[in-house]
């Protein structure tokens, strides 16, 4: 039922209008759910697996591709996050010219603010997963609290969370 070409274009669009590895999530969330090509639960699972596996954070999209469309989906997702980054070569060529323009600084500020808002929506969609209850919100607060100290490694935080999950829900 999935049209591979449209599927690829949705991933490419999400990546083209994002900066950083996660800000493509809301766009994919909107489009894939609207087409019925992904389940709500895929997004939380993908981010979780993406955190555990090696490589840049943005590779969570590979998990989403696999969960929604198998190995082909994963390959299309990889292509879709690689292509927009090639624009850096164009940026590199024109940077000295545009960086001087005052409006470019304003524009970049606006985009950075949008990224902050978008990351908040990512938090929102993760905590709005079908089976996340108030205990889940406590786990999220605990993870943020441990993370903000900067002394506990991310993998340890996630392992602790898995242990808490076992205790609470098994």
């Amino acid at each position, binding site marked *: 039922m999935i049209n591979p070409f449209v599927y690829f274009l949705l991933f490419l669009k999400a990546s083209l209008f994002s900066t950083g590895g996660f800000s493509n999530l809301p766009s994919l969330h909107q489009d894939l759910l609207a087409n019925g090509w992904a389940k709500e639960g895929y997004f939380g699972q993908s981010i979780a697996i993406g955190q555990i596996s090696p490589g840049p954070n943005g590779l969570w999209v590979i998990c989403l591709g696999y969960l929604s469309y198998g190995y082909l989906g994963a390959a299309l997702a990889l292509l879709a996050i690689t292509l927009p980054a090639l624009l850096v070569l164009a940026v590199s060529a024109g940077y000295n010219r545009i960086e001087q323009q005052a409006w470019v600084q304003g524009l970049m500020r606006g985009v950075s603010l949008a990224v902050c808002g978008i990351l908040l929506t990512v938090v929102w969609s993760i905590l709005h997963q079908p089976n996340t209850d108030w205990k889940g919100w406590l786990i999220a*607060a605990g993870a943020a609290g441990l993370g903000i100290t900067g002394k506990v490694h991310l993998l340890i935080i996630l392992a602790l969370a*898995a242990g808490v999950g076992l205790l609470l829900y098994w």
Partner: protein
Amino acid sequence: MEHHHPTPDIWRLFRIWAGIGLQSFGGGASTTFLIRRAFTDKGGWITAEEMQQLWNLCVFTPGINLVALCILIGKRLGGATGVVLSLIGFLVPSATITCLLTAGFTIVEGIPAIQAMLRGVVPATGGVMLLVGLGFARPLAITTYKEGRVKLLLSAAVVAGCFVAIVVFKIAVVFVVLGAALLGILFFTPRRLAIPLEETKGEDHD
């Protein structure tokens, strides 16, 4: 004047990027650290200042900044072939492992203990993501704070507006980003042309 070591041959470049891709767990900061160590501290092919300049370009580029940095370093050290081999080295091994992990997950997904663990891990990633957002917001807030209370309120309004537009009104993210960019031009374009911090602009890239 600092002399660069000769550039690495491109297969070495490939192996270095594969190593970085496979060793970076838990996000941007650890990957950036590995990249600096490999190309600046150990290899000496790219100076710390050059690395900063390359990174500034990546911030302007859509998508994953680290992938853009990989492309720039690949080009600098190995031309077009360098770009391709660096990208393949950085992304293909780590993406393959990510994919296999996901495939493994779908096999054990139904086990109750795994589901219980997942119900702990997923919200925890939400908490971690909140920190990622705060990491983005912090330097912005510091800069804006110096520009006065009005700008700070405007910034908070733009952030909140983006959130509401996406979550409540389900507006396509593309339009939200474009809208925020327009508001940025309106509100945050400096009146006087402020020359950016770097004094070291004499050298051309490339």
